[in-house]
């Protein structure tokens, strides 16, 4: 079996007495795009820097195609990184910025000397070759017209492209991206998402993409690694991470608006009860144990009449968002309230009503025990709705 293209193996790291990362294991297949997503301070950037070699792990190893890179310095790992601040060299033109990684690798120290270096044997041909590659990469990124400019003369989006170009130009073994889009305005960010995914598809190189923006992570990555409190809680496709979260923390972190969590318990018929209201059945947990019942906003159904499994709520406010509407409700057992995502016309129909009944559409609930672990439901036909 071929080893994974990039393998982070049992990584642990602490700064002083503060642990930042613990027991990180992440295997990335050739050509895969993995997003590391988590709230700020979860250690995702540190993990990326460890993969890059800019930071040494306390424990664990970084493997590139099975080859142990842990002891090698970043310059020798042949990975490229795109930084949040772009980190372009302000005194160099775009051309010089993009040529630097090639020049550092292909020209000797003597050949790199200004003026004199150009006279050394072989230097001219190599330099011309570098220039051709820079120009090719620049035109593929549509920045060929900017080659003679300095970073200060570029807009944020153009700088972003130059930073990508500097990473792409030498065809590295892996791309590491540290929140590369967070300094752009919203419209450009959405546009650049597509471009980066396109670039990745064309280059076919392993990409590790750090972001705090779950929309970016879910929208761009082949697989998403959810990091919380210095650990990877779940690695799965965006669809699975959302639909089938590993635990309560992942379920609450992924998804906006947040998943609705109702306190409840399991009754003697293996049903999830919230107060005296039943919300789901076939719960694989001991009768009487306390649980959390999670319902995604789009699965929360609001109706004027009670249904067999529903609980009474009060409609507080409707937030109209264009393609959808969010109905903010309050309930006795729910200090944080509940949010339902509805089609706008449905929401308009509810506008004048105060007392409503909330239920899980098609019984779509996520159940967790008090420690936050997932509780399974036995497979069976959905309850008769």
């Amino acid at each position, binding site marked *: 079996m071929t080893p994974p293209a990039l393998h982070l193996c049992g990584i642990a790291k602490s700064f002083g007495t503060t642990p930042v990362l613990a027991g990180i294991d992440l295997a990335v297949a050739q050509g895969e795009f993995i997003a590391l997503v988590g709230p700020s301070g979860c250690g995702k950037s540190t993990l990326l820097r460890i993969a890059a070699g*800019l930071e040494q792990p306390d424990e664990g190893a970084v493997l590139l195609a099975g080859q142990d890179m842990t002891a090698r310095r970043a310059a*020798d790992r042949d990975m490229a*990184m795109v930084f*949040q601040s772009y980190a372009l060299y302000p005194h160099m033109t775009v051309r010089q910025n993009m040529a630097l990684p090639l020049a550092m690798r292909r020209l000797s*120290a003597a050949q*790199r000397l200004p003026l004199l270096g150009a006279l050394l044997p072989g230097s001219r041909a190599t330099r011309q070759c570098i220039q051709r590659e820079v120009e090719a990469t620049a035109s593929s990124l549509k920045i060929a017209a900017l080659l003679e400019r300095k970073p200060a003369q570029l807009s944020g989006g153009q700088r972003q492209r130059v930073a990508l170009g500097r990473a792409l130009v030498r065809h590295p073994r892996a791309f590491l991206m540290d929140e590369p889009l967070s300094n752009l305005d919203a419209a450009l960010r959405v546009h650049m998402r597509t471009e980066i995914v396109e670039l990745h598809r064309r280059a076919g190189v392993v990409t590790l993409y750090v972001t705090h923006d779950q929309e970016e992570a879910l929208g761009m990555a082949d697989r998403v690694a959810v990091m919380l409190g210095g650990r990877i809680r779940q690695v799965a496709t965006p669809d699975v991470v959302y639909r089938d979260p590993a635990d309560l923390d992942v379920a609450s972190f992924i998804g906006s608006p947040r998943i609705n969590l109702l306190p409840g318990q399991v009754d003697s018929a293996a049903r999830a009860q919230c107060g005296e209201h039943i919300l789901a059945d076939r719960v694989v947990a001991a009768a009487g144990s306390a649980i959390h019942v999670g319902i995604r906003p789009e699965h929360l159904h609001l109706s004027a009449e009670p249904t067999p499994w529903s609980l009474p709520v009060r409609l507080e406010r409707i937030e109209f968002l264009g393609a959808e509407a969010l109905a903010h409700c309050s309930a006795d057992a729910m200090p944080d309230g509940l949010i339902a995502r509805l089609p706008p016309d449905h929401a308009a129909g509810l506008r004048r009503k105060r007392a409503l009944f909330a239920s899980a559409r098609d019984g779509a609930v996520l159940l967790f025990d008090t420690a936050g672990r997932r509780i399974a439901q036995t497979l069976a036909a959905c309850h008769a709705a």
Partner: protein
Amino acid sequence: MPPDARTLADRHEARAAWWLIAPTAVLMLALLVLPVVAVLVLSLTDAELGEPVVNFLGLQAYADLLSDRDFRGAFRNTALYVLMVVPASVVLGLGLALLIEAEARGRALFRSLYFLPSVSLVVAMASVWQYLMHPSFGPINQLLRLMGFAGINWLGSSDNALMALAVIGVWQAIGFNMVLFLAGLTAIDRTLYAAAEMDGVRSAWDRFRVVTWPMLGPTTLFVATITIINAVKVFETVATLTQGGPAKATRTLLWAIYKEGFVYLHVGAASAMAVVFIVVLLFLLVIQTKVLDKQVHYR
């Protein structure tokens, strides 16, 4: 609004503006512009303190000055002094800053130690230097003799005296330059070093060439300007250690102005020298702000 009312309002506002800037304008005129104008006017005369008759010489005063061998000597000495002090103290200040920055231990200690010369009184420290540089029992010469070299007559020979003053000038300037460079170094974005590492920049020299030195551009320009201005103004060491000698070898511009104006009381001639002195400094400032400043800010 009718046009008349408009102009009236404008005039009111203009008058108010004049009243508001009046205090500052008057003070600036009295304290900054007038003295310079007075020096300019005096420089065109042969005014002497206590002489009732003042003759207007016009530009002849400057012609006399430029043909005066003593003045040209002072000008040349000052230029030589600047050429010795500025490169050495900028390079050494940067070197010290890099060394201190590279090692976390004892950073505060070394910073304060090297900064000491900048806060100590030069006039007081001059006596220490006089002792250090004494030709027969000075520790520097004793050390040189111990290593088998002949001792140098540091302050007593016209060949060496200016260099000896330059050594003291460097000693004085290094600490301040180092502190400025340290501030410049801490302001460099760390991610640039990370980017350089990812780009395959391996050696400390390449790191310096690709990131540190270009990023220190504005700091270096500032340090060089300050050092040049301070070096052009060299006076205390001349006054305390050599009095312009031996054989006028350490007569610098400021010393010459002082002698002319306060010892010989030739106010006119001293003013002309002062004007030349100001012009030199202005010229350096213009080069800094107009030419070099654009090149170090990378816009």
